[in-house]
C-alpha cells in the first residue's frame, strides 16, 4: 500500500508527512513531483504544508494548476482519500474540492504554536481511529488560516456534519480565545460531500512521536486502516484469509508486523 506525498516548489512539510507515514505507521510513502502526471498507484494522497509557489497571488492558487493536481482531482472525484494539511488545505479549497477559502489570520500575524482541536466527526478516512469529542494537541504554523465561506455554505457544512476539527480550549469548548486565526465557528478542518477529502490547518504530521506528542498519529493510523478496509486488493484479502484475531483488529502491532513481513517478502 503506497501513500503519495505531493511535492510542490515551496512545500516544506513533505518530509514530516513522509516520516509520519513511514516511521509513524509503517506504510510505504512515496514523493510525487508536482510536474508528474502519474499517481503511481498510490492508495491515498497527502498535500503537505508549506508555501507552494511562494504563496503568490493567493495561498494555493498556483499549485492548484500543477499537472499532478489534475490527477489528484480525478482521484478525489473517484472517492480516493486525499488529505490537505495547512497549505494543502488551501490548495484543496482553491481547487474547488473543498468549499470556502482561507484568508489572512484576523490578527494579521503568523501564528506558530500548539493548539487544541476537537475531533467532531470520526467517520472520515483520516479520523476513524479517534472518538468524536477527542481533544488533540497539534501545532499550527500559518499566516492565512482563517476559514471563511458564506453563511449558507457554513450552515451546510454544519448540517451535513462536515466540520471535522474545531479549535477548542482546555475544557474542549470552542471559545473565541481558543480560535487562533478568526476562523468561522472555530473551524480547523472540513471534509467534502463524499467525506473522503479532508483539509485541516493544524499539523498532525508534526506530532507522531512520543518525544513531541503523538496526538496526530491517529490521522495516519486511520488512513491506513481505511485504505485497507476499502479493498487494497492484496492486504485486505490476505487478512481476511488469515481468519485469526489479527484480522478483526487492523491496528494492532501484530497486524502491522504481519504487514511489514508481507511487504518485505519477495
Amino acid at each position, binding site marked *: 500500500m503506497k501513500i503519495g506525498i505531493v511535492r510542490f516548489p515551496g512545500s516544506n512539510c513533505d518530509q514530516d508527512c513522509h516520516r509520519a507515514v513511514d516511521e509513524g505507521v509503517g506504510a510505504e510513502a512515496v514523493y510525487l513531483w508536482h510536474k508528474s502526471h502519474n499517481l503511481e498507484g498510490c492508495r491515498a494522497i497527502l498535500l503537505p504544508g508549506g508555501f507552494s509557489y511562494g504563496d503568490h497571488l493567493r495561498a494555493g492558487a498556483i499549485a492548484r494548476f500543477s499537472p499532478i493536481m489534475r490527477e489528484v482531482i480525478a482521484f478525489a472525484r473517484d472517492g480516493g482519500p486525499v488529505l490537505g494539511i495547512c497549505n494543502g488545505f488551501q490548495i484543496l479549497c482553491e481547487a474547488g474540492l473543498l468549499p470556502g477559502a482561507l484568508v*489572512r489570520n484576523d490578527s494579521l500575524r503568523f501564528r506558530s504554536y500548539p493548539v487544541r482541536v476537537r475531533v467532531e466527526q470520526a467517520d472520515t478516512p483520516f479520523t476513524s481511529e479517534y472518538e468524536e469529542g477527542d481533544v488533540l494537541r497539534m501545532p499550527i504554523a500559518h499566516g492565512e488560516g482563517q476559514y471563511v465561506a458564506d453563511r449558507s455554505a457554513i450552515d451546510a457544512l454544519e448540517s451535513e456534519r462536515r466540520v471535522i476539527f474545531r479549535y477548542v480550549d482546555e475544557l474542549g469548548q470552542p471559545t473565541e480565545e481558543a480560535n487562533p486565526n478568526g476562523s468561522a465557528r472555530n473551524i480547523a478542518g472540513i471534509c467534502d460531500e463524499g467525506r473522503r477529502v479532508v483539509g485541516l490547518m493544524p499539523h498532525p504530521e508534526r506530532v507522531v512521536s512520543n518525544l513531541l506528542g503523538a496526538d496526530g498519529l491517529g490521522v495516519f493510523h486511520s488512513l491506513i486502516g481505511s485504505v485497507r478496509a476499502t479493498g487494497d486488493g492484496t492486504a485486505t484479502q490476505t487478512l481476511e484469509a488469515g481468519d485469526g484475531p489479527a484480522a478483526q483488529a487492523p491496528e494492532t502491532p501484530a497486524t502491522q508486523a504481519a504487514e511489514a513481513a508481507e511487504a518485505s517478502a519477495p
Partner: protein
Amino acid sequence: MRFEIEIQVTPREGIVDPEGQTIGQALDNLGYSGVHHVKAGRLVRFELDADDTDQARSSVDRMCEELIANPVIERYEVQIRSPETASP
C-alpha cells in the same frame, strides 16, 4: 489590437478584511479622522492582444474567474483601455 488591462481585486462584502481594518486603525492612530470602510486589495495590470473590446473583456473575465480572483472571497473590477483611448 493591444489593450491595457487593469484589474482591481478586493475582498467581497461580508468577508473580513483584516488588512483594510488594520490600515484604517493605523490611519486613525496617526490622527487622520473621518476615514471609513478601508478595503485593501490587489492590482493586476497587463497588456492583452484581442480583436475588439468585447473579446478582451470576456477573455479577462474568464482569467479573473479562473485565477486572478477567488470568487468565494473576492470581487474584481476590470478596466480596459484601447490604444485609441490610451493615447492623448
